[in-house]
């Protein structure tokens, strides 16, 4: 079998992976496999990446040196388990294996800082404000009905204004 990349040399590195519904097979020669480097490693799973890392780095500066003996208190996964299966056990593992994961994330993504969408507190507090507004609106509507029935027209007029005001505020919050 010849190398998929250069089509010249004999392929000695065979990689297979299933991501979602995609099976990928790649047959590479030694040179091309090295050249493809981190692309292939990322593409072909963390297990390969970890072994690739331990191959290319001197043992003393291996990425997984610090927390290698650790175990996640929450789910019981050990760092060795992670190295074997390439998957973490729960969200707490990230904290448990932080010293090893930070350089790993950096190696995989070229960064260890999330810049995207966040679970920001502003978002959550906006939700709270909006549900409070809804409650107030319901209350005002009920009082309005009562006032109309009781023919308390002055009271009703001011409640109608309040309902309008709250409805407008809720619309603005949504926009």
């Amino acid at each position, binding site marked *: 079998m010849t190398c998929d990349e250069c089509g010249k040399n004999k392929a000695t590195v065979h990689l297979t992976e299933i991501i979602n519904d995609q099976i990928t097979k790649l047959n590479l020669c030694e040179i091309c496999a090295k050249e493809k480097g981190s692309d292939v490693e990322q593409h072909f799973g963390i297990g390969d990446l970890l072994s690739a890392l331990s191959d290319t780095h001197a043992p003393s500066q291996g990425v997984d040196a610090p927390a290698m003996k650790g175990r996640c208190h929450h789910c019981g996964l050990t760092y060795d388990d992670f190295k074997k299966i390439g998957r*973490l056990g*729960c969200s707490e593992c990230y904290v448990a294996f932080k010293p090893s994961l930070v350089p790993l994330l950096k190696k995989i993504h*070229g960064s*260890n800082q999330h810049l995207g969408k966040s679970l920001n507190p502003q978002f959550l507090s906006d939700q709270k404000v909006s549900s409070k507004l809804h409650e107030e609106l319901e209350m005002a509507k009920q009082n309005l009905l009562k006032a109309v029935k009781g023919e308390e027209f002055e009271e009703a007029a001011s409640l109608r204004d309040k309902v309008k005001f709250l409805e407008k505020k809720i619309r603005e919050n949504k926009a």
Partner: protein
Amino acid sequence: MSVKVDVLLKQTCEWLRGTGPNSDIVLSSRVRLARNLEKVAFPHWATKKQEKETLETLEEAVRHIDLLKGSLFVHMAEIDDVDKQFLLERHLVSREHMMQPDSKAVVVGDKEVVSLMINEEDHVRIQVIQSGFNLQECWRTANRLDDALLKKVKFAFHPEWGYLTTCPTNTGTGLRASVMLHLPALVMTKQISRVIQAISKLGMTARGLYGEGTEAEGNFFQISNQVTMGSVEEDTIDNLERIIRQVIGHEENARKTLMKQNREVVQDKICRANGTLKSAHIISTKEMMGLISMVRLGVDMGIIPDIDRRAVNELFILTQPAHLQKIEGKMLSSTQRDVKRANLIRRRLEGR
């Protein structure tokens, strides 16, 4: 075979409609987000009981989300292998989702644009697929669905690392954006491996429609972002879009060059493919994919005027093994399928 899943058979999934921007070269755009519940064991590491609880939590949340009203909720354990394969062929589930189906589920929204996998590699995988080159819209929809879920459940999130996923290759945004491209001219002019190499140097990956490395079946290539940390979602998508636009440009140029320099050869290839598909009585998936790719190119270049793109797109999926068996309503051997496949293609291409 489950009656529940049959509903899907009667409709065309959105991503095969053959409409939307650049739909001559771009088959579909897809965005998926990986999310997990906070402090709950990830599916592969969870006990049966924990997995069941995750399913219950998420099923409850999903049932109260407006965006998912009227969705089909399928427990993977309830359906047989043909149905599972059928969902895979429609890009609604992954291979991983078909194994050990206990406590796994898939939620399929209107027109199959939006779907969720529960207890796949991560607790939830949100997916949005659209026809044509439409990544921004996919992202907006996925983001809205994510917002809706955020109001119901607590997702694992770290201010420094973002969304925490089972595999560190998804940590951060958990976002994988991809585009399925039909690139027959780049393959015919032998430029494809150069293009793919360039793509991977830019931090993107390329794969086939249902498998294989560089010699993709039917000349379909899926290009997606690799990295999920260090950039905001919109930038990740912008970046991918920019690269895709270049690939589209290369394919367009290659088509023009082919028509200028090898018009007869191209026309011959396309018309022979059309002829074979219209007259074959036995055909394998592999042979079909190559020929349909040529017919699609013929349709796009105006060489075959009497077939529309949607009909061709539908053939790609209707002729897959599980689809054929669902259409026939029974299990078929591979030889039987090759006959049924040829029949279906003949009927469809004759416009019947």
